């Protein structure tokens, strides 16, 4: 998933301030998922698939992606006059601001995931230095598939499900972030793309998103660490609490992945990793392996709030089973989180949904969250 993007195939991974095709002109690729958000207004859980879209339209829903993309584009053009916009024909981009963008890709007959991927590839080949896309979690997943992890993109929030940390806080903020990146004032960092798999929300992969403080969505989502957060301090604190001969189970996500990286362990951010004495015992481990590795010696579970509404367990990390949690115990749970990400929860409690009600209840109450070296926040874990 991370290796097969069109950008990497084309060998193009631009840095900040790039996307100047010629004569110093910045180029942005605009991609709109015209059916994004269709389900939301009529209380459907998403807009993926022809059947959901048909039902949504039958219930009187109207797409809102174009309108939101227009706001983002207006903001970008204000902040970066003369920006060149390349896009897809029709309602996948061209119709957003007719005449304002160069159409470099035909409108596919349908708007399937494959069409999204093909269109993204075309925009990159046309010189885009950044992809600005309007949609929801499904769109982000398709964009990631198309781009790979290295090509920068930022989402215009327009979907029903937006658990991913790749969306700006508002459509206008998306335009601002794009302008900041193209003009070289912001750099990009890996950010979580989440998606729903049945009832589960999973970490799908990492998309490169420009970081502009307070402008990229962090509130409702598991998200990437930014400037104010002390990842090195968090890693040092986790390391200082390590018990000799013990095993540490790291949940998925950018924070835990960042901690692992600083501790010298290279493992995929989407999986659960078991570490002992500073070396990786198992990457992308399943439930049985984790239980086996943690039995008979001191164990900790290191997790960061991930996905949707600040879930600690039960979303995106089902490999950490009730059996493992019971074996490790509440005292062995180490929650790590940057301060800005915690602040962005807006006072809402962290949540657990392990599938075992008694265990869930035992995990509620207050837990110390590691926010830096010898720094904690006492934070509430609530009932769902």
């Amino acid at each position, binding site marked *: 998933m991370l290796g097969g993007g069109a950008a990497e195939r084309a060998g193009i991974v631009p840095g900040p301030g790039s996307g100047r095709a010629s004569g110093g002109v910045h180029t942005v690729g605009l991609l709109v998922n015209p059916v994004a958000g269709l389900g939301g207004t009529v209380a459907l859980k998403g807009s993926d698939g022809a059947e959901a879209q048909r039902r949504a339209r039958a219930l009187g829903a109207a797409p809102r992606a174009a309108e939101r993309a227009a706001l983002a584009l207006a903001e970008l053009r204000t902040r970066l006059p003369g920006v060149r916009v390349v896009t897809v024909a029709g309602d996948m981009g061209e119709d957003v601001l007719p005449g304002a963008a160069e159409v470099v890709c035909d409108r596919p007959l349908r708007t399937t995931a494959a069409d999204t991927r093909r269109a993204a590839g075309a925009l990159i080949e046309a010189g885009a230095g950044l992809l600005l896309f309007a949609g929801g979690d499904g769109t982000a997943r398709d964009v990631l598939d198309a781009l790979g992890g290295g090509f920068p993109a930022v989402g215009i929030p327009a979907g029903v499900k937006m658990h991913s940390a790749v969306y700006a806080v508002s459509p206008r903020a998306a335009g601002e972030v794009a302008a900041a990146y193209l003009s070289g004032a912001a750099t990009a960092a890996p950010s979580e793309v989440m998606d729903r798999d049945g009832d589960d929300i999973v970490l799908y992969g990492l998309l490169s998103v420009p970081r502009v403080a307070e402008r990229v969505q962090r509130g409702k989502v598991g998200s990437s660490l930014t400037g104010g957060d002390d990842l090195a301090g968090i890693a040092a604190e986790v390391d200082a609490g390590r018990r000799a001969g013990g095993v540490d189970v790291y949940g998925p996500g950018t924070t835990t992945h960042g901690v692992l990286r600083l501790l010298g362990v290279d493992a995929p951010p989407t999986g659960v990793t078991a570490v002992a004495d500073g070396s990786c015992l198992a990457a992308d481990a399943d439930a049985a392996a984790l239980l086996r590795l943690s039995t008979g010696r001191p164990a900790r579970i290191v997790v960061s709030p991930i996905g949707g509404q600040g879930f600690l367990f039960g979303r995106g990390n089902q490999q950490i089973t009730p059996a493992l949690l019971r074996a490790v115990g509440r005292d062995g749970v180490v929650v790590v989180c940057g301060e800005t990400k915690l602040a962005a929860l807006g006072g809402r409690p962290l949540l657990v949904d392990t599938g075992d009600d008694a265990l869930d209840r035992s995990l509620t109450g207050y837990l110390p969250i590691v926010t830096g070296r010898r*720094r904690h926040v*006492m934070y509430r874990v609530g009932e769902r």
Partner: protein
Amino acid sequence: MTGEIAPKPPLRRYHAARWDEPLLFELSQPGQRGILPPALEPGLAADAADELPAALRRERPAALPELAQNAVLRHYLRLSQENLGADLNIDIGQGTCTMKYSPKVNDRLVAGHKLAALHPRQDDETAQGVLEILWRLERMLAEISGMDRVSLQPGAGSAAIWTNVAMIRAYHESRGEGHRDQVITTIFSHPSNAACAKTAGYEVITLYPDADGYPDLDALKAAVSDRTAALLITNPEDTGIFNPRIAEFVEAVHAVGGLACYDQANANGVLGITRARDAGFDLCHFNLHKTFSTPHACGGPAAGACGVSAELVPFLPRPTVEFDGERYFLDDDRPESVGKVRPFTGVAPNLVRAYSWIASLGAEGLREVAEIAVLNNNYLMTQMLKIRGISAPYAKGRRRIEQVRYSWEELAEETGVHSEDLGHRAADYGVHYWTSHHPYVVPEPATLEPTESYSKRDLDEYVAIMNAVAEEAYADPETVRTAPHRSSVHLNKEETLDDAGAWAVTWRAYRRKNAER
């Protein structure tokens, strides 16, 4: 000629001075001098420096800028014109900082030779006047806080917090409880509380607000243990919301043997109304440059005051100022003291200013200060909340104490203009405006604190400016976003503030870091 005065527009057509003034080092010209001292008389030692030990002597002269007197004067006058000082603007935009008027008569008092020419090494017998002022000021602040003794030694608010943390540590160690290694604070208390505790070696536990914006009492109860050294907390917090359950916070910390320390840097809303000791606190501190009107002085020297209960008196910084009924003297023989946190007895000019300010008001006047500050704030909030796109998060419909943390979240979503942009545009109308400490728990924050110094007319003018700027954000966001347009400088590169490779506080560092780039 009619002699009529042209009517002024509703909003000032302000424009700041813009001098493009170089740095002093850039203005330096070899050989320029401010003063030429007379040549040595024949027969005197050729060079006094010859008497110095070799280790103290420079091999090369110091690289100082060389300028004439008028060049120096012109330089600093120009810089002063490029400033929006507290005496120049309606300075209510720096919430939490309590930017009140500092009466000029107090500057005259301290500029006189009696204080300005005083030497800290003078014999106590020849400094009875200033020692009496320090002693009496200490008694006043003890009465205001309810504490038993007060130290006036710290040179700033954060220095006072650090001093309190040092006393907390000494207190626990004296009781054989040096194992207490945690300090608890809240996210809406001033970040100096966490920073000072951390500097002193403590582990810091921070509490976040509950849904109403109060610090979470249940979180505190979960955090306290036999490792708790102290709670460092502000009330009202930066939101301007008074925590009515503060005594329960103190009790929860006392129950495990910890101390409770009240950050009263800004006590402007509670003077004469509540006292730290009455809520059970063991320590508190005041910033005399906030509540007690001495100038902030652009980062110092300021003055902090630490108040403590009787149990903590042995640990106060030394020397203390004492009075034996006849004469005032300095007591340096305090074996349990945390030592000195600053040379001598404190920043005397600021202490005299604060003494004069308190004496001129009296007890009734201090309470009136708090009452007017609270009334001003609630009037300002009522007017500000009429502006499009603004809100006051938490405690909906309820009054605030002396300040409010507002949110421009709605305006930002609708216009793409951010709180920082509004502040930059406000500078075009000659007023200052601040957002919030980090992290931004309140999105798109702005913190306003009008104090008692400003009239209704002043507040109305400030509101009119903020209203104009907000309306402009809707009608012409580009102008707001690219502001300031009429100020002395344009925008700083904020990212360099976090880049140790870029910032420079000396000319030498500036040249070194820029040469390397």
